[in-house]
């Protein structure tokens, strides 16, 4: 058991993990494919990290907002709003970092406002994909860490109602089957 500060940090990290993982994965996949396509390893790495890191951070923020009860899990509007801001900024950061890595000087795309507006439109698509993945990973992850993280347990409870229903239906079937077996004997 670490110091209270470390423990609090770890718990926050656990809560942020699902969104962080999905955001990072989106960036890393692009980076991995870059390497496969034979680009210089350095460029591929910069491009992947510069996209994965901000996407991961914004994704983690979504998870934190959700576990804190500020955002209802699985609803599209909050995720879309968050990515409307987060996605263009992440792409801008990637463009700037790639320019710096390749040309050796900082810079942004020529028409920054146009660039940001286009990225904002695409962000709606990214938000659907993000939500889709997040909803798959978050409940399972929260259940896994719930035993040691009370906030995760609380957040998992919101997801668990349906699982409990399915579980009780299964239990009822099992009991009925056992009863029928006993009757046969």
């Amino acid at each position: 058991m670490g110091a209270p500060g470390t423990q609090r940090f770890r718990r926050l990290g656990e809560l942020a993990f699902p969104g962080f993982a999905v955001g990072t994965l989106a960036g890393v996949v692009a980076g991995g494919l870059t390497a496969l396509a034979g680009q210089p390893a350095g460029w591929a790495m910069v491009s992947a990290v510069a996209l994965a890191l901000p996407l991961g951070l914004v994704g983690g923020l979504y998870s934190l907002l959700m576990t804190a009860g500020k955002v209802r899990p699985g609803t599209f509007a909050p995720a879309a709003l968050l990515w409307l801001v987060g996605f263009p900024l992440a792409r801008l950061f990637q463009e700037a970092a790639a320019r710096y890595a390749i040309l050796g000087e900082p810079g942004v795309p020529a028409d920054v406002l146009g660039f940001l507006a286009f990225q904002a439109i695409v962000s709606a698509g990214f938000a659907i994909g993000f939500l889709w993945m997040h909803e798959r990973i978050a409940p399972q992850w929260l259940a896994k860490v719930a035993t040691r993280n009370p906030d995760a347990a609380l957040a998992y409870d919101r997801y668990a109602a349906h699982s409990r229903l399915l579980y009780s239906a299964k239990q009822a079937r099992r009991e009925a089957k056992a009863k029928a077996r006993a009757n046969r004997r």
Partner: protein
Amino acid sequence: MVDSSKVPISGSASGEAAASPAGERVWKAGGLEPMPIRPLPEAPPSIHILGPTVFLVALGVGMGESYMWPRLVLVFGPDIRWLFLIGVTLQAIVMLEMARYAMATGESIFTGAARIFKPLMWFFFAVAILVYIWPGHVSAGAAALEEITGIPWVVAACVGLVLVGVIFSLAKVVYNLLENLLSIMIGLLVLGTAVVASMVGNWSDVTSTLSGMFAFGYFPQEAMSSTWFPIVVGSIAFAGPSGMQQMWYTLHLRDSGAAMGSHIPKIRGLRHAGNEEQMPSRGYMFDTSDPEEMRKWKGWRRWVTFDALLLFWGVTMLVTISFTVLARAADRNSPDVKALIEAGEREAALSAMSDTFSSVGGPVLGTVFLGFIALIGMNATLGLFDSFSRGQADMTYFFVPGAKKLKMSHLYAGFLWGLILFGIGILLFGPADGPSQILDVLAFLSAFSMGAYCVVLLLVNNRLLPKPIRPKLWTNLVIGFGALFYLGMLFYSLIRFGVVLD
């Protein structure tokens, strides 16, 4: 025909039919065994729990969305996309109606068809075999993989097929495994295409793609030619899941435990077949005269509507928008793409698009594009192999005499491995899409089954379900329009141009 228009009530479920010999309350529907009345489980408390739409998306987001629609946009401009909007919306409503029967009874739509008229169901059994045994999807995905990695496509496709068989056979519950696997792959696809579209597209690509969806009535003269008309109609029919894929969705709903599907055991992988519970010989019905049960039913309808609209409609729409943006970006940078597409060179057009992306954003984008095509091929293969085996096993188990001696898992595994072995044989020795002489017949059957399942839906939902849960008039009108549209266009194309849908 038994009158099945009344509400199941205590002791007498169908009005004229009293309790079963065991004194159990039942609902008589069509010519088969009556359905016992069981409680409807509570619907998920909130709509955020994702449902089995993932299968439809996996099957639906195939070459149609990644190739056929971008191709039409390149040839006729983005305004042609209003037809896609109509096609995919029609399919979402069909999906909701398929769900109505499956969720109310826990039976597949195939059993529903058999309750109306058994030969109808055998028609679907035969069509599934004729149309879906050809390993075209896996070969398309493997060809894209070959471009990236250099692994010969036949090797990748054969290994992929065996891998699919092994994974499904080892699974404890096939549905759960596949749902998780497919959702991750589709999530990657959606995220990835969005990121790539953000890198290569621009403002006008997106706005013209979006505004084209509302250009109702736009239909250029060239589209009325024998070359393009069947392709346009085929693209509308295949916007989203095509052929029998909507029918298989009812089996996935059942296995996901949706509504009355929760009373039916799940299909297990071959290795765990021994743990499978005895499959009941028919589905169940809930007491539609009980307001509490009807409240739960409404909850389930909300759940499936969310599943259909946001996930199926939204994700399918999104992937095509992304791919259309990609195609337009490719067209801007390399006019060859359009010429290749007009010449009907599918593989050439895909690799030209990939080359264009490479020239715009470095080799990574070309590779990423081909990676998505490989991913789409893999999604479709997984979804299709599972769905085919599930559907055929279901029909065999319930309607082939003596089949109940086997477990559903054994039948499922039998169809699955049969499909895999046949696929490998064809990949090694024959044409992956099927013999060219009968391609037209297969395309015809696939589109014909879509018109046929609209008719089946109308009959099943309006004749076999209790009145309080039957579809509303406007829904029936839309499904009726679907039947007329699919069958009408098919025969019009056949008579006017002598060709069937692509």
